């Protein structure tokens, strides 16, 4: 497996990671010890039979490997690319104790890509049950629940407010980490199970609550789309973006190809991205590809960044300059952005007791000359629909309160993904969706 060199990839949005070749995949799979009690499966939020599919890869039986993957996960090409395997399946692989763990993510990606290029087959779909299920939101959670429920024979309709399905897979994750034709192809596979997709439908607005609650079951997967702003002066200057807006303009609306595409995005010479998560890395790397010198400002140390290590490394390779233990206090400018005022933070690194509270160091203030600021400091559950549903219990952060099977305070209404958990990973969202889909299926069968 190789990666495209940083000096080349910063000029385009093509994929960074090139994936495994046929021979590399087989050789990698042959390293698997085929543990009797595989820890990797426990480390997988959607419970893929990892030793099973890896064994099939080792035998060169890729169609069988693809079927094994799709049995639990209809989005393997996506997960193979964006799952944090290092903290999940690969993190618990026993080979990791002595050498390197099996590269399960790379193998998953290889199998999914192989299958997409060689006549994908669909899992079996049960006979129609006559039950109707509404899924709200077509992100990772919505797609996963829809697939499982359709396979169980229920008539599933997904409502999506945007003009394209995929949620964060479409608008959030840039093409150089997750090519959009791959997202579309895997969504097509879910729809091929008989799932109906209604785009441009904002439930609660375009679809009445009576209509929604009239379904035999409802799965809410509206995500954590509400962007947080820091609340510092200068935030409404032209040239200050939420990461959501910046990424949506480029990933979903193709503003990088303006004016061929109609949506514009500002092109800045010097950009400050605030935050230390995967979204901050994505925003920084997109800004870099639009030609900017990019600073990444994070109030803690690099070790504390919630982003995947690989993304931190990629960002650095691409020339993103990290300003850690640094906090912005004011955005400067008149009309447009001219700079950002920051302070250095003490106690910014983790101590033995966990995360300490960083505090500003007096007299450490400095100004960075930038003409764009992107805030990637997190998102919270989208309140739009869930605040409209009478009797739906919500937590302090606006999330929908659910039990371990995704049940909400309303009997036939379930929720999963970020709207229930708060902002998390693609695969965690899919895990909650699978559990909820199983519970919905049991309810609809009267079990």
């Amino acid at each position, binding site marked *: 497996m190789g990666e495209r060199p940083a000096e080349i990839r910063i000029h385009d949005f093509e994929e960074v990671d090139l994936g495994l070749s046929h021979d590399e995949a087989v050789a990698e799979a042959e390293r698997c010890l085929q543990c009797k009690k595989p820890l990797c499966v426990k480390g997988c939020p959607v419970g893929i039979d990892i030793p099973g599919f890896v064994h099939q890869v080792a035998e060169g039986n890729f169609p069988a490997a693809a079927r094994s993957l799709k049995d639990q996960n209809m989005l393997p090409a996506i997960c193979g690319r964006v799952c944090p395997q290092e903290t999940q399946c690969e993190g618990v692989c026993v080979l990791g104790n002595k050498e390197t763990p099996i590269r399960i993510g790379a193998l998953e990606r290889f199998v999914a890509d192989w299958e997409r290029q060689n006549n994908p087959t669909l899992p079996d779909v049960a006979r129609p049950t006559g039950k109707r299920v509404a899924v709200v939101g077509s992100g990772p959670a919505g797609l996963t629940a829809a697939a499982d429920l359709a396979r169980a024979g229920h008539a599933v309709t997904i409502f999506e407010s*945007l003009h394209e399905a995929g949620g964060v897979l479409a608008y959030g994750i840039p093409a150089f980490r997750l090519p959009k034709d791959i997202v579309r192809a895997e969504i097509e596979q879910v729809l091929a199970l008989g799932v109906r997709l209604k785009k441009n439908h904002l439930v609660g607005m375009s679809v009445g609550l009576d209509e929604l609650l009239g379904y035999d079951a409802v799965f809410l997967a509206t995500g954590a789309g509400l962007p947080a702003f820091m609340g510092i002066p200068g935030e409404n200057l032209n040239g200050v973006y939420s990461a959501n807006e910046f990424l949506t303009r480029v990933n979903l609306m193709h503003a990088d190809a303006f004016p061929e595409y109609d949506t514009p995005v500002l092109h800045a010479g010097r950009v400050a991205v605030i935050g230390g998560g995967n979204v901050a890395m994505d925003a920084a790397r997109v800004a870099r590809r639009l030609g900017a010198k990019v600073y990444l400002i994070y109030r803690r140390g690099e070790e504390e960044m919630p982003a995947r290590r690989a993304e931190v490394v990629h960002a650095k390779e691409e020339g993103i300059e990290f300003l850690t233990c640094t906090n912005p206090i004011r955005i400067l400018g008149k009309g447009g952005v001219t700079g950002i005022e920051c302070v250095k933070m003490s106690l910014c690194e983790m101590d033995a007791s966990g995360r300490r509270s960083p505090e500003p160091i007096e007299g450490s203030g400095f100004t960075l000359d930038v003409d764009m600021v992107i805030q990637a400091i997190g998102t919270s559950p989208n309140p739009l629909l869930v605040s409209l549903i009478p009797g739906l219990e919500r937590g302090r952060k606006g999330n929908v309160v659910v039990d371990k099977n995704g049940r909400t305070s309303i009997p036939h209404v379930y929720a999963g993904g970020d709207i229930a958990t708060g902002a998390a990973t693609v695969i965690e969202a899919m895990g909650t969706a699978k559990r909820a889909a199983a519970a919905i299926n049991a309810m609809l069968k009267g079990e």
Partner: protein
Amino acid sequence: MYRIESAARLADRVYEYWIHAPHVARHARAGQFLIVRLHEKGERIPLTISAARGDAVRVIFMTVGKTTEELATLQAGESIMDVAGPLGRPSEIGNYGTCCVVGGGVGIASTPPIAAELKRAGNHVIGIIGARSADLLILEDEMREICDELYITTDDGSRGVHGFASDVLKRLLEERTIDRVWIIGPAIMMKVTSAVTAPAGVKTYVSLNPIMVDGTGMCGSCRVSVGGETKFACVDGPEFDAHQVDFDNLMQRQRIYTSQEKTAFERFAEHRCRCGEGGEQHG
């Protein structure tokens, strides 16, 4: 795809389209908007819902840039790729007594549904519609039908009162009690006109039109400062208390993409020119 049922030109650069969009039409309320994307490469732009009838919605827009120019080239029977909505909170309709609904320029498009719902709620409804000149005045008959009283102003005096809508509003406020005011028009017009109602402390709503992308509260492009707090016009508005709105920031943020908008428009105009000369044809 959403079919255009009818397309008409109401005035210079002002068009009225009825679009088949049942999911929007059946749920639309006064004060709400929709978002269109014309085609695969299009941008998402918000347009006020000016009326809804059966499964169709009416939008009235002025050609101000590439997307609206392109929309204006579409004929009845052709289709728009995406229509999402209704979006935003509906107007705060209630039985307040006497209400005044003021529309400026193409902003008049938003006034009939608000005036009609206020009327249905039992209010005495006064309409004031103003334009630069008589030929730019739209929906006069429709507003006359809905309102108990209708005043017309033109900047050049070619029809109705010679002056601004704010002049008439000011006079009315001096003469009698007005309980609620709605003002919809260009940002500068809303700023100036709402200043008239501030001294009398009359609760006044304005419908803000910042740049949007998704229209569902996800991106924050449309954030506006209201009473010192940041609000998203798409989900917290588009109507806000006029006397709390930072209009200068709104107008500043409306200009973010001025140079890109010019590029896109020039490119489109050039393309259209070539078509007119019998060269490349629209696909």
